[in-house]
């Protein structure tokens, strides 16, 4: 049997730099030294394994998973897509977690003091496990835009935070989904930390009328790509002997 292959070197040009001065918090939280590049060992090519026993039946349904007296307020949406790797192969059985503000732009978090009200029927987080084709879907309400303390008049575009694992710790990724057509996208310093327009486009979910449920829920499509593995020919050995 061939030994397990390494993951492709992370494409750092695809990601925001650690220091993005217009996103002010990054100034004191960005390392100044270059990271040390590591050839992967078993510590890097392994990672936590998840399964359906880790998630509950309603965890992926943010319209229902915290409802107390009825549905949450807001535009009903489906967010769906696939988790693939750089080789365009599906990443099955992996944990996808999301969190977001409610339709008014308020998080259910004690540090969020924005004046938009908490929605008693909306928690704002969900999770699911991808199927064999790497597919996932969530049902939720579209989050609202909200102001944040950066420059005086900065507003976050509507967004949903995504956390994805893949099959190894080296694939670990957190990102944000934005919505096609949102005029706040080009004004946001966090979005603008991305290196180019193609990277912004990759984080912009597209309206998907084919997945919409008529008279019920509108749909957006968002595919996620994690690092892929090299082929194993003539590799150095990751492990001994």
């Amino acid at each position: 049997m061939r030994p397990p292959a390494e993951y492709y070197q992370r494409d750092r040009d695809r990601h925001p730099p650690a220091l993005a001065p217009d996103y002010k918090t990054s100034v004191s939280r960005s390392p100044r030294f270059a990271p040390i590049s590591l050839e992967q060992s078993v510590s890097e090519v392994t990672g936590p394994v998840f399964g359906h026993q880790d998630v509950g039946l309603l965890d992926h349904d943010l319209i229902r998973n915290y409802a107390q007296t009825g549905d949450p307020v807001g535009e009903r949406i489906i967010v769906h897509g696939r988790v693939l790797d750089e080789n365009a192969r599906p990443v099955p059985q992996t944990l996808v977690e999301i969190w977001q503000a409610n339709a008014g732009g308020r998080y259910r978090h004690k540090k969020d003091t924005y004046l938009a009200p908490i929605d008693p029927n909306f928690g704002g987080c969900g999770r699911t496990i991808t199927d064999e084709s790497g597919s996932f879907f969530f049902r939720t309400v579209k989050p609202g835009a909200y102001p944040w303390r950066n420059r005086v008049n900065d507003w976050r575009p509507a967004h949903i935070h995504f956390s994805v694992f893949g099959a190894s710790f080296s694939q670990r990724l957190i990102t944000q989904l934005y919505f096609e057509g949102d005029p706040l996208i080009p004004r946001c310093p966090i979005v603008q930390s991305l290196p180019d327009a193609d990277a912004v486009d990759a984080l912009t979910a597209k309206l998907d009328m084919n997945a919409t449920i008529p008279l019920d829920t509108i749909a957006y499509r968002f595919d996620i790509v994690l690092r892929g593995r090299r082929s194993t020919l003539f590799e150095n050995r990751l492990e001994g002997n």
Partner: protein
Amino acid sequence: MARELRETPSQTAGPYVHIGLAPGAAGFDIYDQELGWDIAGPNAKGMRMRVEGRVMDGTGSPVKDVLLEVWQANADGQYAHPEGGAVEDGFRGWGRVITDFETGAWAFNTIKPGSVAGRNGTVQAPHLNLWIVARGINLGLHTRMYFSDEAAANAADPVINLIEWESRRQTLIARCAEEDGQVIYRFDIHLQGPDETIFFDI
């Protein structure tokens, strides 16, 4: 096999990462089962330990909204993964922790891992793999935590030895202490500044 697609770009986890990834720890009761609070499980072999510390920013202030994830081998140096070896029932080796919102202090309980196979027949000293996200961190930071009481193994460790600046190697070593019979390792992480922690591009 070819590299056909580009990786999805990262964005900061932001200040409210807790409600997404550790809602129970943040005082928000939504899931029946919170993931990542029990790293080693009840049957784990090896020495129980507590790891505690803070993450400091470039001004020397604690980062109070950080989330850390841990990935570690068991006491035999095996990972709970199809390519990682065989582990005892209930050992996952993965966990996550958030800080006290007032002080920035974090802590988790686990077992001390064993030495792990390295590349090309080398041996890696016992270590925890850590991943750090927070508001202001645009791409999650990978680092490792080694143990002060493993001086000989650390001296031979192929990763520590990659670090050209010997003075910076100590940023990866947790200090061992004992309190009330419990083994505690203290590990502060500095995002920036004279004691900046070594981070890895893995």
